[in-house]
């Protein structure tokens, strides 16, 4: 399974990668994007099975990426890992077709709970 990790923080991409491993999701093909534009482009070009995206990124925000993908008919499993966690944002994410919403800081247990039904 191919997983796209989109976050403008290299540190957070590493933490997401490590937490996936700690949660038992080893052996997947991981692809990274360092801003929203890259995330959109790689989601189209690389055709990942899952996109784990930050919300607040340069070039395009995560929600803009999701809306652009859905607008183009792309139904990849897509969700957010973000420190911003207002109800307003969660509603926007759900309305745009997000599959999950993980709040930073997060734990391996939280990853396991969210991703087992998606890629387990």
């Amino acid at each position, binding site marked *: 399974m191919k997983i796209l990790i989109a976050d*403008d*923080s*290299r*540190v*957070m991409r*590493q*933490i997401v990668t*490590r937490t996936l491993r700690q949660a038992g999701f080893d052996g997947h093909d991981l692809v990274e994007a360092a801003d929203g534009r890259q995330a959109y482009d790689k989601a189209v070009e690389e055709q990942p099975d899952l996109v784990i995206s930050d919300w*607040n990124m*340069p070039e395009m925000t995560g929600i803009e990426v999701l809306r652009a993908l859905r607008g183009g008919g792309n139904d990849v499993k897509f969700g957010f890992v*973000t*420190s*911003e*966690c*207002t*109800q*307003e944002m969660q509603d926007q994410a759900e309305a745009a077709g997000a599959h999950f919403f993980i*709040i*930073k*800081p*997060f*734990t391996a247990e939280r990853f396991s709970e969210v991703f087992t039904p998606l890629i387990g």
Partner: protein
Amino acid sequence: MSVQYVPTVADLNEIVEQVWASYLDPEGVNPLIPVESAADASDIHASVSITGSWHGHVVVACSNAAGKLAAAAFLAMEPEEVTEADLIDVLGELANIVGGNVKSMLPAGCFVSLPHVVSAPAQANHWPAAVQVCELAGLWSGESIAFSMWQSRELTGEAAA
């Protein structure tokens, strides 16, 4: 514009405890020990700005050694392996996490900026349009680290009226 809520030290503490439990002290053996003043936490400053229904800044300040310890913990490496780029990225992410969580406690309609990191003492940082409204200062492995919130002077004036 009316101010419905002013963040407190208790709010900051709640968020910081989650950060320590998740990334900086997952074993629960090396907590942040509160201190009165953040006088020594002045080598690196990372901040995010919040705009919208609340205006201000969330600032993380720490000594170089505390920054390296944080970067080492975030990146699962030894402190001596931490590069300047690691340090800046980790402190920026720390400000982003705390700022993002602060946003969730504020009235709806706020926006959080991308992080800004300055490797310079406190005297190099100025927030002319804002005043500090709360600060959580502590020692972590004997090193200084502090989290503070700075609120628009305009909002502070309205809140006091």
